[in-house]
């Protein structure tokens, strides 16, 4: 990739679990907390911490509600999150392409 800049990697996404969350949401658009927990094989506490970081960066929107009597946490990717993820992938791909 021309103009590849290693320093463009986004700190908010960098990290396997946060990258997984963003990748999954980029495809699904939205997911329940338990769905993410299962797919990413993460613990509840760990997932909560990483979701909060992504929420602080404005990349995901967390909506808490109820399904019947059970609490339900749903996570949506935001337009800013999509853009950041696309940029992140571009940088990673560039790194692989350049060194392979």
């Amino acid at each position, binding site marked *: 990739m021309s103009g590849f800049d290693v320093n463009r990697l986004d700190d908010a996404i960098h990290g396997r679990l946060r990258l997984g969350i963003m990748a999954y949401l980029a*495809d699904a658009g939205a997911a329940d907390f338990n769905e993410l927990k299962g797919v990413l094989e993460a613990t509840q506490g760990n997932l909560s911490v990483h979701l909060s970081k992504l929420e602080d960066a404005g990349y995901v929107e967390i909506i808490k509600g109820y399904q019947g009597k059970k609490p339900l946490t749903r996570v949506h990717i935001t337009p800013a999150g999509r853009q950041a993820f696309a940029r992140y992938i571009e940088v990673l791909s560039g790194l692989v392409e350049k060194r392979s």
Partner: protein
Amino acid sequence: MGRVFFKSRASEPADLAFVRSFAGEGPRAQASAGLVFFWAGLLYGLQTLVYAAIEAHWLRIVPPFGLWLAIGPTLPFLAVIGYVAWRDRKGKGGVATRALTASYTSAGLMNLVIAVTFGGLALSRQSTAIWLLYPAVICAMQGAVWYAASLIRRRLWLGIVSAGWFVTTLALTLLMSQVAAYLLWLGLALLGLMAVPGYVMMRIAAREGAVTKGEPATGAVSDPQAAREDLAFIQTLVNRGDQVQMSGGLLLLCGGLLYGLQCLVHGLDMSGGIRLPPLGHLINGVLPTLLFLIVLGIVLWRDRHKTHANAGSRALNAAFGGVGLANLFMNVVFGYTAFTQKTWLIWMLYPITLCALMGAGWYVAAVAKRKLWPALVCAGWFATACLLAARVETPGYLLILSGALALLMALPGYLLMRFDARRSA
């Protein structure tokens, strides 16, 4: 996290191309679907409103313009389809995006099958009622598609559009004898429930795909091996068709066997192979549904706490849920119309529609799972719909339907149960 996630295959050009394309595929696919819906709704909505005005004697069209009015919307719409197909020819979505796009496409495929079968029958029987049922069926299919979209994307407005389509299905059924009002409602529905949502989808896609201002906080990674593993991890997470699970194997098996047997008995009776007494007819008519409802109750109770493991499974089950919902509305549409028109032939159109609906559901399964066997089942259902239309009102009709229910419903249901059992073991 993930035992298969560290397989470093993403350095291969095809894998790299997938991951790169995937990041922007959601908004791209949404923009394409929006574009198709917008133009389809606008062109056919306006065409239908003109027909409504003609039917109400508010407008008169002289012969050459009548032909232009009939084919006019289709020509630009085909151009839109061609443009979208060309633009998206290299698109590589994740499994949820694939399933959603397939869900939209399945509505088009079903439209084609229903247009061919109902059109042929309406022409051969000189029946306006059959032709008027065609939009009602397509409205129910639209309801199914938007229902699936609402469950996949978890957006309320998509659910409202779905409800609007189902309401339109019922309204068209009730208005079938008042053609001007029927066409007016249909035209407004095409504009309000297809063109407007299509435009909204394009706007959302444009907003999601727009370049955001401001640079994020950044850090350095210079290890290409780590980058390769990250890309492989992403691909494994979003692109594995084999992770997509379909529930309802037992329902398909029981439904296929019970209704297949029912059609076989009825077909043999019609062809003179066996002679059923009146009580036999009653039992054959009622018992399969009674048994199926018992199985349905058991499955719903058993799976009441079950959630879908991933977005692909959610998407696929949403598509089949939409098919089930549309089937329910089809029962009402064909039952009511056959009863009010006192025409048995209209009720015989219901299984044709059901076959096309099943074909649409299996099309989504084939695209999401990327397996050959669901594609064959899909093709089988569409072929059955055409065959049934050709053999309607003959004993062969019920025998074909019986074979299709056994081969294309019971057998895949059994296979799904086997896959489930193997996965659980």
